[in-house]
């Protein structure tokens, strides 16, 4: 875990909205950190798009199976921030 996380929940939510849209039945501004992506209306394709965008925007390389490994926003944030810490 990076001491100064540079990738925040808000940034993730913004990218999810942009890359994969938003399910009307879900409040992405609520407490979503530990909800499953599937419960937030996001399937693997949605995550592939979002992860690819994160990798480009933040110049990080995430694990090959990141979409399988990160089942929740918190898990994805941790992986991204670990990647960012490694890069620094």
């Amino acid at each position, binding site marked *: 875990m990076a001491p100064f996380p540079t990738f925040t929940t808000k940034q993730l939510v913004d990218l999810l909205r*942009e*890359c*994969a*849209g*938003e*399910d*009307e039945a879900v409040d992405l501004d609520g407490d979503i950190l530990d909800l499953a992506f599937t419960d937030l*209306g*996001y399937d693997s*394709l*949605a995550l*592939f*798009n979002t992860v*690819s965008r994160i*990798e*480009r925007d933040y110049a990080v390389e995430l694990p090959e199976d990141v979409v399988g490994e990160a089942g929740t926003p918190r898990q994805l944030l941790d992986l991204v921030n670990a990647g960012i810490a490694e890069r620094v």
Partner: protein
Amino acid sequence: MSGGGTASPRHVITGIGAVAPTGLTCADYWSAVLRGESGIRTLTRFDPSGYSATVAGEIPEYTASRYVPGRLLPQTDRMTRLALIAAEEALADAGADPSAMPPFACGAVTAASAGGFEFGQKELEALWSKGGKYVSAYQSFAWFYPVNTGQISIRHGLRGPGAAVVAEQAGGLDAIAKARRHIRSGTPLMVTGGVDGSLSPWSWLCLIRSGRMSASPDPEAAFLPFDRRAQGAVVGEGGALLVMEDAERARERGASHRYGEVAGYAATFDPRPGSGRPPGLRRAITMALADAGMAPADVDVVFADAYGVPALDAAEAEALAGVFGPRGVPVTAPKTMTGRLLAGSAPLDVATALLSIRDGVLPPTVHVASPAHEHLLDLVRDAPREQRVSSALVVSRGQGGFNSALVVRAAA
């Protein structure tokens, strides 16, 4: 009269969804048609200056998120969103709820031409200007030919037979005929037709290479089928989706509409030029009538293919006069108000024909001021013509030699 409309139909159209440059609902489109209002305009989607063709039947900007779920927006081409709007309207109009029906009771067959070409352009641009990593995960299906069938089936839980057919601009009728085949084979409900559109710089280049696009910049003079001033086609976006049901099942569930039935259909292909053999359009019409068990005199109106290319207009006028006799049947081309909608045109004509049957009115052909084939065609010009309509022939051709004809008939 050779049995036209006497036997009880085995299948029936119970729902219509239409999207067109003149309206995003069937009712809006139909009232614009009856007003003779054209949706052909100078392109605004992109700057058309510098291209030889500059007008199109463009659907005005609308707030897609009002109609299409947010999760679907990043993964759909513009024409797929329009198809989702039309499918939802058609099923609502039919009062059908596929999720309440048995698992494989409902299917979908749509017509396509180039797929989600605008979406594809965006991804090609990302690929070539920035690199493969910039290509969307959704490119794997958002552009492809059966994308509308797939998205409609997911959105409405249609788990029966599914396909897309492509026969250039004739495929819309082929799709409806294929859906009828599935109904006959035991699938109770099919969503069918086509919604299409491809107004982006990349598709524009391809379309212009068809050699058939009108170069006129005047929206009122660019698309003039059967007019001495005709100089080419104008394309547009939109189309129609229909709910077709087994007649008995529709009756059982108390379907409120019975717009009509698909009584006859045939498709032919033109011979190789220079073969000395006749073109196939007339044969398609004759065979569709035979399939319907109808004589030419049983047909109340023809929705012409109306290409707007002089030689093609002449060929169609001669084929129609050959079957029906000179001025033997009213002929109309409401697509003069929308442009040719690629794979969406013929399904929209079928929808329009069903509305003509419902309301007893023939929609007009607009902008045609100097008719070219008056001795052959009784063209319904400028204003609607009120008369009883119990059957209509829809004709559709596709570049390359495709001819399809389909007869709809009141469901008695």
